[in-house]
């Protein structure tokens, strides 16, 4: 029963990814301008353009090209860059590693803090502490991230000289260096992603705290901490996991501003560069990576929710 539900959920994820691939392919093909023409420039002869089109399989029907593209994508060969003839895999490889590293460090830093703040705010609801947390999260969520990042650079890099203003992940050799390099982007990103996690965790938990079984726990003599951690929290895992997944998915595709400000060589920056140079295979691959990351996170959250529910676990 439960394996069937999880398989169904995974099936939906794969199907979604397939649909996304169609959308990405169609959308990038609908961009105006002929790729061969752009690559060769205005001065190219029609023969040269036609030759390149043939070499790039652009003369083939779109369906066929889609199948080729999808096949390449699945076998780990999404093609070569149109701009500098480097395989996309090589271009993305190091960048993806950087982005995942930044995402992982940010997640490791922000998720525990956000959950703790959300849970404690729910526990001491309507106290001064709760109001402070709520006020702070709203304040943070309303300030655009470039503001946070710029102010962080001004204070910590320019004035205090604590951290470098630019983050070159490539010259990290020790843990200390890692912390120094990552400090500012991680803090800026954490600000952005934590706010939603805190608010959702608090809301989900307050919702379960109002349930009769939590009152029953109190009437059995359970203190506040016990009734929250052992009674309310297990029933709020589903919504909390989803909030965390949604926030973290932002770390894959949405970090372009942070990457730009700190000149961090991540994949979002690569994609924007790809758009500027009309490097279709690069754009397509980046888009697919973002979608894959997003889907993977959301699917994991859903599976967590299924596993956390005994009604589904023991039919």
């Amino acid at each position: 029963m439960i394996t069937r539900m999880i398989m169904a959920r995974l099936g939906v994820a794969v199907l979604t990814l397939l649909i996304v691939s169609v959308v990405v392919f169609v959308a990038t093909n609908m961009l105006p301008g002929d790729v061969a023409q752009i690559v060769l420039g205005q001065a190219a002869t029609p023969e040269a353009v036609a030759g390149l089109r043939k070499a790039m399989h652009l003369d083939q029907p779109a369906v066929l090209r889609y199948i080729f593209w999808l096949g390449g994508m699945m076998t780990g060969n999404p093609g070569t860059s149109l701009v500098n003839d480097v395989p996309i895999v090589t271009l993305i490889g190091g960048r993806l590693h950087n982005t995942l590293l930044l995402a992982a460090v940010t997640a490791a830093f922000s998720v525990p803090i956000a959950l703790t703040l959300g849970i404690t705010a729910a526990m001491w609801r309507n106290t001064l502490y709760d109001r402070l947390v709520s006020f702070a999260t709203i304040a943070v969520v309303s300030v655009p991230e470039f503001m946070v990042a710029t102010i962080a650079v001004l204070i910590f890099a320019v004035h205090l000289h604590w951290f470098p203003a630019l983050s070159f992940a490539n010259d990290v050799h020790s843990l200390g260096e890692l912390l120094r390099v990552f400090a500012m982007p991680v803090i800026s990103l954490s600000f952005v992603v934590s706010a939603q996690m805190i608010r959702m965790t608090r809301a989900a938990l307050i919702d379960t705290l109002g349930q009769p079984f939590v009152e029953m726990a109190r009437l059995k003599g359970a203190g506040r901490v016990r009734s929250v951690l052992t009674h309310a929290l297990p029933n709020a895992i589903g919504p909390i996991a989803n909030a965390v997944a949604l926030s973290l998915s932002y770390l894959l595709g949405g970090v372009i501003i942070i990457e730009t400000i700190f000149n961090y060589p991540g994949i979002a920056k690569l994609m924007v560069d790809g758009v500027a140079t009309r490097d279709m295979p690069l754009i397509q691959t980046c888009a697919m990576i973002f979608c894959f990351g997003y889907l993977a996170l959301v699917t994991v959250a859903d599976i967590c929710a299924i596993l956390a529910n005994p009604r589904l676990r023991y039919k």
Partner: protein
Amino acid sequence: MTELVEVKNLRVIARSDSGRETPIVHDIRFTVPRGKVVALIGESGSGKTTIALSLMGYARSGCRITSGSVRIGEREILSLSEAEKAKIRGRNVSYIAQSAAAAFNPARTIMSQVVESAMIHKLMPKAEAEAKAVELFRALALPDPEGVGSRYPHQVSGGQLQRLAAAMALISEPELVIFDEPTTALDVTTQIEVLRSFKSVIRERNTTGVYVSHDLAVVAQIADHIIVLRNGSIQESAPTEQILANAHSPYTRSLLAAANPAVHAQAAPPAEKAEDVPLLEVEGLVAGYGKPGPDGLPNVTVLNDVGLSLQPGTNLGVIGESGCGKSTLARVIAGLLPAAGGRVKFRGETLAGSVADRSKDQLRNIQIVFQMADTALNPTRSVAQILGRPLTFYHDVKGAERTRRVRQLLDLVHLPANMAERLPGELSGGQKQRVNLARALAAEPALILCDEVTSALDTVVAAAILDLLAELRRELKLSYLFISHDLSTVRAICDDVMVLYAGRKVEAGSGASMRAAPLHPYSDLLVSSIPELRTGWLDGLDKKAAEADGGIAAVLARADRCPFVSRCPVRKPGVCDVLEPPVRHLSKGSDILCHLEERELLALGVGA
């Protein structure tokens, strides 16, 4: 000192969102002697649960205990700190909640929750607590006492959960147990089992208890002393016998009267030469939920081969326990759920399965009134809008005429005309149900499907709604299909009664025939399970009511045998469990679905 609990001058106030404070409980004083059970009885809003909770020093959010004293043993509860109160809760005083289904945490096993209070208060090692829990499960007559603890709450039935909640309360051997409407959410047949096991545990352990309920008949079986509450103050306080036999306060007397609703079923006014065509006719109805399988039957079959016939101007009561398919029957007739098989005919015409395919006139003639007036009425629409919409839709009435008709409808259900501009949230439960009824009447239907319309109401209010239904029927020549789990309500208003069990019609006959022997064994169980308003009724019952938790689900799947076989006290092995029962016509005029013949049933004393 013999008084375990002494409450003096208790006062609790509630704070509304706008910050206004209103006292909801005031000047309460009572005592509970050791080893006795005192009942707090009253309708919703009478403050009975608030008082019970304050015995643990607990007030729900938005409420505050402002003054008074609650002494339990040597301790003054109200002056304790929050941490000290937590030490009392679950240790010295424990609580059994109204809905055990909601009071158990769905994400944790039953055992971990039952022994939790012993763990919190460090009363005994875990293994010892678990052994003790198993012992309690056995004392409470739970099936599979060793195994039930490792299950999750959704895996056991409501009646079992309620007994498990009792085990949860008793594990720490508290001085005082608070029972907060512990059987209200249960079917009568289940209620009787739970009451029986509560009573034996209370007696064996000499438990001191406070029993909160709205049901005098239930309380009469368990309590030694009854305190009648209304609007947060005590109306009357006396020993149980005295309250039942010789109540002083007029309010107590009205409660007693409402417990036995007046019978309105007119001895079937032989509808002027009964038209030949029945108003409503249902034949061989099969319905359920989920995708139809290869055999054309739905995934879960809820109704199986159900038939009925309703003459114009008469009422049919449909009765059965939760899950028997009675609401599904109403949904199929109303066109909300297309049937998988069989036919529904209205005035001789076969009705389409779904609302969308029925004519406007067919829709107008069959109206449905739901149990929960709270959720059936759109909270953002005024009463005038709610009633005006069907007027415009069915009768194309607009403007001043519409206002006039709305006022007329309100008058019909005995609501003042100035209610028209109110929102549902500003009305009481009984008023909402009247609006709900008026909404159905606006269509000027011939048939109203009443789905448990009085179940969510207090007894006095419910009795008034029944009076209103009877009056409307006389004035407007309506017919009702009256669905209820409560036989006394059905008897009060219906000419004919149909008993459903596990989706099968097990008995159908006139209301009067339901009082004469013999009955179908299930109808007999149902009738004998209704608590009577006298002390000693529970003790006087013989144990013929077999295992109440037979588990309907297990029965539903098997069509090749009697649906009631697993719970039937008079079953014949080798017949009832292998053959489908035939329909038998009894000499008193009713039909039953049973293998036993009339004389066999009579000889066994079924329904006597």
